[in-house]
């Protein structure tokens, strides 16, 4: 009895059943109308196409759940990729190059946190500023030009396959599992949600608010960097113009997946589903040779519907 209820809770708690339903429905529609949608190759393609944004979205989920906002993830993605590219170009071994990229992301994320906590300037503004600063940094250190010729091992991260499944997909799935564990099962996750729900309550309960925020934004920076590394590996170049607009897509995925934009609720599996919804939509419409501009309209509509539905549901319950 206890085991059964635990299983249900694993699926039900915090994860909106509606998101899963929408995903399945959309997949069904695509299976009917889009040629080749249900082939294994195509489904893997969907996961592959979603991986970079998915990883970014997972990082953003933590920040949003904690009551913050990070608009700089697209730019951090670019700087991290470029830093990794420069590191490997200058002869450093590939693990060092990868770590450099991740460290840059962590550092910029931490900078976000420090500013937000110390200056009292709202996260929207601080991370908006970082969006510009990081982008400028990326262009500066790369001289505005993409860095080609990444080492084989790093390219494998973006183009290699393990057991027939592309490496980015593995990384995406792994990140989802670890992230979900972190947000739903650990004290860190509980405290994050409480912080976003009611900062005063969290403070009164003795949670170290400033340290929590530092961790959340740093985590977001690291995820953005990971996304940047995957991106560079996929397209064979560390590009300073990478990730433009990705921050909005990441936030959209998180919100469609059930993360409360104002904090206090969010799951990583939900974000995974939200990212997949966007990926299935794009992939299906691609297969149907629909103009890409329609895809953008469709995503915007689904986002608003997802949040509206959520509000209607919570009104029904209270």
């Amino acid at each position, binding site marked *: 009895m206890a085991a059964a209820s635990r299983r249900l809770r694993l699926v039900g708690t915090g994860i909106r059943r509606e998101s899963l*339903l929408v995903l399945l429905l959309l997949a069904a529609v695509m299976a009917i*109308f889009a040629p080749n949608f249900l082939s294994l190759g195509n489904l893997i*393609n969907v996961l592959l196409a979603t991986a970079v944004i998915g990883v970014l979205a997972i990082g953003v989920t933590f920040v949003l759940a904690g009551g913050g906002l990070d608009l700089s993830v697209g730019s951090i993605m670019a700087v991290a990729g470029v830093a990794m590219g420069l590191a490997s170009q200058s002869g450093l071994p590939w693990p060092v190059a990868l770590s450099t990229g991740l460290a840059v992301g962590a550092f910029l994320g931490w900078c976000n946190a420090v500013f937000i906590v110390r200056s009292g300037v709202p996260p929207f503004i601080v991370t908006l500023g970082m969006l510009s600063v990081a982008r400028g940094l990326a262009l500066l250190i790369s001289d505005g030009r993409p860095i080609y010729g990444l080492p084989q091992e790093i390219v494998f991260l973006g183009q290699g396959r393990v057991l027939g499944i592309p490496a980015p997909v593995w990384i995406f799935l792994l990140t989802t599992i670890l992230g979900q564990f972190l947000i739903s099962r650990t004290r860190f996750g509980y405290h994050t949600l409480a912080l976003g729900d009611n900062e005063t309550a969290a403070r009164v309960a003795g949670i170290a608010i400033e340290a929590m925020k530092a961790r959340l934004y740093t985590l977001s920076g690291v995820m953005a960097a990971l996304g940047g590394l995957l991106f560079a590996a996929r397209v064979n*170049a560390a590009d300073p113009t990478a990730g433009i607009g990705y921050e909005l897509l990441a936030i959209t995925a998180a919100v469609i997946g059930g993360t409360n934009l104002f904090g206090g609720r969010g799951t990583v599996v939900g974000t995974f589903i939200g990212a997949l919804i966007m990926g299935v939509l794009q992939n299906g419409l691609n297969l149907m040779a629909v103009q890409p501009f329609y895809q953008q309209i469709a995503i915007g509509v689904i986002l608003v519907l997802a949040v509206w539905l959520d509000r209607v549901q919570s009104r029904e319950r209270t």
Partner: protein
Amino acid sequence: MRTFLAITVLIALFTAGLATAQGRTVGVVLKTLANPFWGAMREGIEEGGKSVGLTLIIQAVPSEQDVEPQLNTCLNLLQRNVNALVVAAINATNLLPCIREANRRNIPVVDLDANLDPAILQREGLRVVFSISSDNRRAGGQAAEYLVQKKGNNFRGKVLIIEGLAGNPTSAARRDGFRERLAQLAPQASIVASLPGDWDRLKAANITNDVLQRHPDLSAIYAANDTMALGAVEAVFAAGKGGQVVVIGTDGNADAVRSIRAGRLTASVAQLPYLVGFQAIENLAKVLQGQTVPSRIIVPTLVIDREILEQGRDPLLRYLR
């Protein structure tokens, strides 16, 4: 809940469009349709497809920054089991994984508008059947030829070159082509400045102003694209030098044509993206029938000025879009 489900279905249906995959299908990945250059190329491709009887699936991405979505689109096209792939890559490396997969499946790949780098392709062990574009260097050379034709072989005047984005290969090719040819045809002419206008109208206007200040007797301006040429034209007329300075642009887009007819812009080296697209499909059809085609196909560019437009006799004019 039910309303929401119904709405989702409606959205999906509303945006549904079926594409058939009968007979020989060719997948085409363009850059962005937001640019009229690519719109004209698309027209040429479509007409080409009709004329040789190939079914086309044409896809584009929203902007020239969408590097990853273009790769995803390319991979999706391969999922549709196309018989050939035509790609206009945003940069030299973003589509390599897709090309690799196409090579693996023995699907011929065409490099549309020469965005791929042969050196990189060789290093990666990838093949394309041919590369087709206009020749930017030759375009610049044609501008120099036109200038000398207008001003005479003994032309010894001052010339300003307005380049595109610094470091951009297209811009560099046009500039170098112009320089080379000018040196050959009119060695006594002097290039007083060669500055990057970043493809921007206002920037080009400012550059022109500055240079006119220092060299009031400037004879000619060559700009690496029409947008910048039109900016330069404004500055020239504002300085009262309308008749004195010859301004030549590159691209031959609709704005340039209008300005030439109105007697402001002197000339432009028109690219013919419609023809590039058309010929790409024509040549691809030959490849699919087992014939060989040259691995590098150059599509001519056409210099247009008021006279040529008004006479309307040049056969290439019909490819101007």
